[in-house]
């Protein structure tokens, strides 16, 4: 995936794999497939147009993936040649309490943050879908945080909001709870990060809203005639009808969440340990520290491959589960 898209994370990687481009749809005679004499020229043209992508794929994706797999089994500090050590990195990793902590922090963040963000996105999308007047304005206003949310600026501001005696703490004090701010509290800082994630619900909301627009109105009218209340209509019509969009959002937001870096790094005070008692030591933060601060490139590569395996497994489970809950229209339009 594109590097910036990955870690600033607002441009959404798109829908589940699309069918490959179809040949020109038939019709007029001039649409006839190119004859044999033309095919080599078409091939040449195709590969010329594709050459930047092919170079990028080999040099920046496929090559690095292979290299990273190799490094994962070596001891490598960037200056001396990599030394093969077999599975040592992996056994070190599983025994490393900070690695375990980073997995715990990341899983907690993903499991709490993603559903909350999607619930907020769906809730507000349902609200906005009720009326068209002013919808464009609200849509834009709610979307804006997704665009800036991953920036250093917002993380800095978030730290200021959640620090001791700051706005959130003062508000809590009004209700008689002096918690001392979330940023310094190992039990709470992760929730400040979750709040920052939920705040960026605008991107999935826009996608939900587009999905809601496509639900045929007749379905609601028919259901209402049959006496179905709003709740039943939501469960039996809205939710099944938008399940493909829901699936898409769940998949993307989950994969994104696993890769959070900048916000956690800045919110946690950019240090080592990452946040009070390593409370914001997300996986990529530890990967960065091991690779670039401790020059343990082999260990960090092993960590990266574990992340890839985890993300791959989650993706596979989601795709497998969609048979049970995602309804694709049989005869779409």
């Amino acid at each position, binding site marked *: 995936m594109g590097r910036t898209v990955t870690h600033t994370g607002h441009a959404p990687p798109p829908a589940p794999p699309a069918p490959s*481009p179809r040949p020109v749809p038939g019709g007029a005679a001039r649409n006839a497939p190119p004859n044999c004499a033309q095919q080599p020229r078409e091939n040449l043209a195709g590969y010329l147009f594709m050459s930047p992508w092919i170079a990028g794929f080999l040099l920046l994706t496929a090559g690095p993936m292979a290299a990273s797999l190799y490094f994962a089994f070596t001891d490598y500090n960037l200056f001396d040649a990599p030394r093969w050590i077999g599975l040592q990195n992996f056994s070190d990793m599983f025994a490393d309490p900070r690695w375990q902590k980073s997995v715990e922090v990341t899983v907690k963040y993903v499991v709490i943050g993603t559903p909350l963000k999607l619930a907020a996105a769906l809730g507000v999308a349902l609200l906005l879908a009720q009326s068209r007047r002013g919808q464009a304005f609200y849509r834009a206003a709610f979307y804006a945080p997704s665009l800036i949310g991953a920036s250093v600026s917002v993380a800095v501001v978030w730290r200021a909001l959640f620090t001791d005696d700051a706005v959130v703490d003062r508000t809590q004090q009004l209700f008689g709870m002096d918690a001392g701010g979330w940023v310094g509290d190992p039990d709470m800082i992760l929730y400040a990060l979750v709040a920052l994630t939920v705040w960026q619900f605008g991107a999935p909301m826009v996608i939900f809203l587009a999905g809601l627009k496509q639900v045929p109105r007749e379905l609601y009218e028919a259901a209402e005639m049959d006496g179905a209340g709003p709740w039943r209509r939501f469960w039996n019509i809205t939710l099944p009808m938008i399940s493909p969009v829901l699936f898409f959002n769940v998949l993307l937001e989950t994969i994104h969440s696993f890769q959070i870096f900048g916000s956690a790094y800045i919110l946690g005070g950019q240090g080592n340990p990452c946040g009070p008692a390593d409370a914001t030591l997300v996986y990529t933060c530890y990967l960065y520290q091991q690779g670039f601060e401790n020059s343990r490139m082999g260990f960090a590569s092993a960590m990266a491959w574990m992340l890839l395996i985890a993300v791959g497994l989650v993706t596979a489970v989601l795709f497998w589960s969609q048979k049970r809950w995602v309804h694709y229209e049989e005869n779409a339009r």
Partner: protein
Amino acid sequence: MTLTLDPTSSNRRRHAGSLGWHLGALAVLAVVLYPVVWVLGGSFKPGNEIIGSLDLLPTDPIVANYTRLTEGIAGIPISTFFVNSTILAVGSVGGVVISCSLAAYAFTRIRFAGRNLLFTLMIGTLLLPYHVLMIPQYVLFQKLELINTMVPLLLGKYLAVDAFFVFLMVQFMRALPKELDEAARLDGCGHLRIYWSIVLPLCRPALITSAIFTFINAWNDFMGPLLYLNEPEKYTVSLGLKMFVDQDAVADYGGMIAMSLVALLPVLAFFLAFQRYLIDGMATSGLKG
């Protein structure tokens, strides 16, 4: 009219419902925009009043937080960071628009052997975590002695590595009528000509969406510059801000907040100018496919 939860027929009910709807939407909006208003107000307050105060607006607005920025950060004028970020962002836009549209054209308009395989590979890279590539790419650029230059940050843009934008353009180009370029073909135009004079102009909306997202992503990017740039003179705005926060452990919240806002200005300006393109581009990404 799309009424998802509660289609009502009577006008009076609709009117009352509309008022309630706006109240509900505004209430959510107030919560979401609270941090933005707070920080905007805070940037005009004296440093010691920012953190603890629940007041959104300053009682005595001052501009000292902003004038303080003219002193620069660690002796470097903040304009340096802005110039660096602009070079990175504009350079990225050029690369993405050219390289991704070339690939998308080939995927949709040229029937070459192996096209389906390459398309599948391209889709596969969409979900690949960047962190798997991060270390070998760093090693590669280090061997090429390109650390502390913009090359590692820009090269991928010129090599269509951002599969998301290739995909976006493929979706768009597929929808263009084929008759146009087939007519041009009969007139003897080659692929380069069709790409440049017919398909690219028709793809403007997709190109604009990609360009804006690329600009904003490059502007906000933190990890890339953090890895590859290590002299403060070469820092982008994100790194400049990080350095500000770093050196200012005692917390000059006024300057910090003012700098954060200034750093976001180009993104917000782009958003206000082009929000339609961004949101519509977003919305379709989840539906088609």
